[in-house]
């Protein structure tokens, strides 16, 4: 049996005297779309960064993150780039660069046609535009295209729809479902969006414990209450189920 694309072994993450993730044993395989849920400051971004093999100042890490059975620290930077791509919460652009050129620069392993990626994310018209002039939502969709363009099988996306309007949130969810050759780990807050986008859910509880499983089983009212600390009502409607925080 070949090693899993992404695996954590007793992964523990602590920062500022607080344990964010406690002894997490977990695997993600190609074709799976994992959503990481948890309260603000629960450690979602920290976990995604650890999964990407990039540290943070003040972070204490125990246990290991493996890609294809090999610890992240043992991957040379050049090889790691063809295994994982990471979408930070916000781009920090300082220099003018055209969107098309940005995508071209992001390619490590040619896997997707950059133009088709922009097309799928309603960003084809932006190809000639300067990134410094894009709106937050446009820049984020371009960043998503960048991530996929890198060609890595593991995509780690930190709040990929934070700046998207409802129509584009839907579009991004549908686009993520087409990325069948990738394993996705996504942090997000909107439970209704997660129900549409995710196949699996990893929940970070306030005490650092983690719960994991298929999305349908994980998104139950009692569990969501434990995760977020507020009540939940699940409404069965015409088009499916809807989650309302109370």
């Amino acid at each position, binding site marked *: 049996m070949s090693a899993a694309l992404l695996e954590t072994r007793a992964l523990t993450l602590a920062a500022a005297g607080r344990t964010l993730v406690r002894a997490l044993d977990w695997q993600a395989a190609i074709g799976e779309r994992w959503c990481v849920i948890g309260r603000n400051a629960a450690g979602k971004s920290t976990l995604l960064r650890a999964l*990407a093999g*990039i540290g943070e*100042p003040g972070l204490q890490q125990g246990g290991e993150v493996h890609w294809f059975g090999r610890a992240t620290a043992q991957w040379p*930077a*050049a*090889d*790691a*780039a*063809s295994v*994982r*791509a*990471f979408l*930070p919460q916000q781009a*920090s*652009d*300082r*220099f*003018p*660069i*055209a969107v098309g*050129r*940005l995508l071209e*620069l*992001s390619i*490590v392993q040619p896997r997707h046609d950059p133009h088709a990626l922009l097309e799928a994310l309603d960003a084809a018209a932006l190809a*000639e535009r*300067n990134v*410094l*002039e894009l709106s937050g939502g446009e820049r984020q969709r371009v960043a998503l295209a960048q991530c996929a363009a*890198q060609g890595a099988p593991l995509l780690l996306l930190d709040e990929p729809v934070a700046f998207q309007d409802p129509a584009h949130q839907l579009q991004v969810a549908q686009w993520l479902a087409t990325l069948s050759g990738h394993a996705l780990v996504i942090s997000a807050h909107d439970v209704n969006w997660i129900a549409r986008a995710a196949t699996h859910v990893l929940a970070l509880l306030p005490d650092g414990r983690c719960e994991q499983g298929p999305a349908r089983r994980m998104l139950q009212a009692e569990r969501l209450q434990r995760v977020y600390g507020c009540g939940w009502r699940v409404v069965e409607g015409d088009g499916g189920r809807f989650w309302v925080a109370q």
Partner: protein
Amino acid sequence: MPLAGSRLAWFAAGLLATTLAVLALSLLIGSAGLDAELIRSLRAPRVAAAAGVGALLALSGLAMQALLRNPLADPYVLGTSGGAAVGALLALMLGAAMAFGAAAGALASGALLLLLARRALATSDDASPRLILAGAMLAALFGALATLLLTLTPEQRLRGAIFWLVGDLSGADHAGATLLAALVFTLALLARQRAIDRLLLGSEAAHLLGEPVRRLRLELLVGASLAAALAVASAGAIGFVGLVVPHALRLAGVQRTRDLAWLTPLGGAALLMAADLVARSIASPIELPVGAVMALVGAPVFIVFLARGTR
């Protein structure tokens, strides 16, 4: 709009033509007119030095901007000119060659910055604010030292020292060396153009794309310090070129390091030749300090560029 394809080619051709026109004017115009022997023996070396120094300063600025991820950075922000000034003044007091003192000072300031920035460069986080602050503090320190040394300079040498601190091409001699160094530096940037373009996206982004960020930043710092040291050693502390040339090219729409790496030295050479032409001819026979002329002419142009707001 990014400049690309035929529009970029026209832009480059225009810049090349401008540079050649400035070169021709610089060789032909001067206090002694069109004496062929004088042009060859006096004016040509000076014009060549202006071109080489301008190219080096502009390249140094381009590298510093990539290093610090700050479009307004240049070697002077990092204290290189201050270091060079202190070195030159020390050499003047000790009776050594000012040019060697300037080079030693610029390199020492680069090394000091490297030492201060060592931890920031070792991690892959975006160290720009820390590096800029370290550079600004070095510049302040060297500025204070230079002022202190200036008050101790003997009166008969004071005028030369001040003139030199502002930037002066009249005694520039290492023309061949500066031109050759500019060519080498351009080729070094071209060899790293894709990595530098990725570094401009952020040190973490570049790291995630597999670039050896730490080594690349070290190379940029050493290269930019050496280029600035050579320029300062040959013509004194001329500011503005390293800041304005790459920035103006970016405002015009040149975005890729592949294009900037050779358009920048071309623009720097043209700018400094033009400034020197103005400095030595506008109030002839009095020569104005080229550094002051550069700032007087260039700063308003730069402000207009900024006010237009096109990135």
